[in-house]
């Protein structure tokens, strides 16, 4: 991993009226890093992620994503990132190929490039025979692998993944993480949230949010050592159990 910083946040804060959803969080994420963004329900993860994706203005603090300012350059941010979640991924009523073409087009990939990369992608995911199937007819695991590939189709600098593997079977969940590793190896930074604690172990570094603040941030190995824990589940439990706002 090199030292190029692609996400930079300093005292980033978001208030909704009297409620401080995100409370002065600071961190940096490097090129190709797999960064796990963990926290209890209601800890402020989604709000923080929305600010970094250029979807919500911070109340105070600074942040830049792919070199662009989160206050002034939200449109440039959107062009340089990819995003997927369990809830929103692909259009169910479009075929696999139509979805790829649609997203490629939206992100300004040239038609010739779309054509070439589509073939590579179908081959890689081993879904050449299903290319004309509606996405709605695919099993969830396939959908999520495809959604991830579509999210990085325009070769963004960073991809944000919001609980991408919720409900996915254990084998497909692992295939999904192989895609994440591969993206990281290609230099795409992966910013991922998950409730599966074994997946937390797959990240290069973890941050854990409690009550709007970052309660801990380190490699999984160091966090386990600091909390004398056998696994990340125990670390999570030790840090988040004391959360005041459980929601």
């Amino acid at each position, binding site marked *: 991993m090199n030292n190029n910083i692609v996400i930079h946040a300093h005292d980033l804060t978001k208030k909704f009226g009297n409620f401080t959803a995100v409370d002065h969080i600071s961190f940096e994420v490097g090129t190709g890093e797999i960064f796990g963004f963990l*926290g*209890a*329900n*209601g*800890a402020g993860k989604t709000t923080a992620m929305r600010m970094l994706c250029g979807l919500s203005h911070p109340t105070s603090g600074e942040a830049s994503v792919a070199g662009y300012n989160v206050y002034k350059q939200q449109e440039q941010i959107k062009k340089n990132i990819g995003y997927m979640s369990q809830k929103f991924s692909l259009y169910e009523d479009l075929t696999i190929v139509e979805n790829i073409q649609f997203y490629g087009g939206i992100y300004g990939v040239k038609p010739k490039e779309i054509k070439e990369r589509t073939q590579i992608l179908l081959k890689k995911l081993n879904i050449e025979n299903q290319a004309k199937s509606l996405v709605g007819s695919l*099993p*969830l*695991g396939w959908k999520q692998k495809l959604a991830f590939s579509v999210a990085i189709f325009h070769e963004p600098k960073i991809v944000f993944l919001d*609980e991408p593997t*919720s*409900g*996915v*079977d*254990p*084998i*497909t969940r*692992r295939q999904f*993480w*192989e895609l994440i*590793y*591969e993206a*990281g*190896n290609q230099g795409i930074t992966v910013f991922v949230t998950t*409730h*599966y*604690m*074994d997946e937390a*172990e*797959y990240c290069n570094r973890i941050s854990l949010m409690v009550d709007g603040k970052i309660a801990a941030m380190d490699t*999984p*190995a160091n966090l386990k050592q600091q909390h004398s824990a056998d*696994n*990340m*589940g125990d670390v*999570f*439990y030790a840090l*988040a*159990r004391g*959360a005041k706002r*459980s*929601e």
Partner: protein
Amino acid sequence: MNTIEVKDINKSYEKGKVTALKNVSFNVGKGELFGLIGPDGAGKTTIFRLLTTLLIPDSGEAKVLGYDIVKDYKQIRNLVGYMPGKFSLYADLTIEENLNFFATLFGTTIEENYHLIKDIYEQIAPFKKRRAGKLSGGMKQKLALCCALIHKPEVLFLDEPTTGIDPVSRVELWDMLQKLKTEGITILASTPYMDEAVRCDRVALIQEGEILNIDTPDNITGQFNKKLYAIKAGNMYALLKALKQYPETDNSYAFGEYAHVIVNGDVENLKSFLEKQGISGIEVRNTLPTIEDTFIAESYKP
């Protein structure tokens, strides 16, 4: 008599085009906490909808508390509590109003059965004037559980109560279910999280509409008859790739900070193979299988 009896149930959708359940049979005893463990699309929700009399099977039969799910649906509906996987409370009613509504519907009051929901309700009570539609995922689940419990059902059906809930709340929820068991309530709960299987008395592992295995969590992991190794290395991605290339690998997959490997022959041979591939910092140890290892082994088709 078993509290839940399911025999050779088949169910398909879209005029037989989509098979949801294939010859599913299982029994749940009184006061048992029984888990349906499997990924999305395995057929878990179909089982719940059949047993709560919201669907009719294509073939086979099932009984809840001795009542037939097709003929005796009215009796069943009065005696069970159901928390669907999809949030199904009234979004425009507050927490308090939703709970009152469900209590009234079943001819009871919140006060009468408050002891059953106390632990959970106290956590959401500070927000009782908030509309259900404005609650976060975890709070919605807690409210839904309260509403399913308020008429003191004899059987509780919980469809993925922990999905989308953080690990701390998940632990708390399973603690609560253990407590409800002591009240004599029979519980059928589903989850996609394999590690939650150990919180159940017995589980059924389910994949693509078929039950792979039914037993206690200990017996299921005890049936895993291959030697399992946990391997760690400096570069996990490189390690996983190398393990796949090794000719004697039966199966290998990531498992937290380790990779789990089932290998033919001496593990020392694997170690030297990995070293030749340039993998550094190799650490190999024996490990015991978990429910997730068993699930992978049983659903793995090379």
